[in-house]
């Protein structure tokens, strides 16, 4: 595949991620912060997000499984996850976290357990999407092309 085709494929994929709500404008901000001096910025932030998310999900599973549930602690973890997903532009994960926090406030453990599953699912979804996107970017760069600038209004 030649570079132009790859770039068009990338644009199509990005557009779909936005249309389906997986990503929001914040992700574009990340792309804009990447330049020739920091060509790996997006990959680095996203990798960090994956690592951090996995840690938080582990902590959340532990907290939710306790005999005596500490809702404050659960809420603190979800707050963290909401923050990091918002910073990346992972909109659906962020929204799932917002819903989760509401149930923490209500101290509804069953709803919390269900929310945790939701958040996990959304995270896995966006992780797969981002990995695919970044792979496409790698291919473009390897073929000597550059990653198009996208605008989303």
């Amino acid at each position, binding site marked *: 595949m030649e570079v132009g085709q790859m770039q068009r494929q990338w644009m199509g994929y990005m557009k779909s991620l936005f249309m389906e709500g997986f990503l929001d404008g*914040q992700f574009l*901000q*990340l792309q*804009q*912060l990447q330049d020739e001096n*920091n060509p790996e*910025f997006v990959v*680095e*932030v996203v990798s*960090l*997000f994956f690592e*951090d998310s996995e840690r938080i999900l582990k902590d959340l599973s532990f907290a939710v499984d306790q005999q005596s549930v500490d809702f404050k602690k659960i809420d603190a973890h979800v*707050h*963290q996850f*909401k*923050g*990091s997903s*918002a*910073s*990346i532009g992972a909109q659906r994960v962020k929204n799932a976290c917002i819903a989760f926090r509401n149930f923490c406030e209500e101290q509804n453990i069953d709803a919390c357990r269900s929310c945790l599953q939701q958040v996990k699912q959304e995270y896995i979804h966006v992780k797969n999407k981002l990995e695919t996107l970044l792979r496409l970017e790698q291919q473009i760069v390897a073929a000597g092309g550059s990653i198009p600038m996208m605008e989303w209004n």
Partner: protein
Amino acid sequence: MGMAKDNQFHVLAVDDSIIDRMLIERLLKTSSFQVTAVDSATKALKFLGLVEDVASEIHQDVDVNLIITDYCMPGMTGYDLLRKVKESKSFKDIPVVIMSSENVPSRINRCLEEGAEEFFLKPVQQSDVNKLKPHLLKSRVKEEQEQPINN
């Protein structure tokens, strides 16, 4: 290691989130700021030389032109850090900016009343960071006016 490079402004960024630290550092560096990023208010105070049990404020060679801190942090909050900075002899004139993921008017007002220059809602944008230069230039002019002429 606390010296400002040439005429570059040195910003101390404080955030317990590793991702937000990375983001704010990149945003600040894009604006040509020199950045020191730490993950807690306690570390920030240590960096400035404002340690609890030491009566005098050491580390006179630390040259920080602005502090930007997250509000919600475990242990000491950004608000506590703001207060400590504003209460200190050596650092009260350093502009402090607060960041928060939560839009709570009472929180915002508290911070502004305590002396914060700006309150940014997270995720912080380039347009927010662009608001910092005027505060820094104002501080620098003030600093220069207060210096005895020693060329």
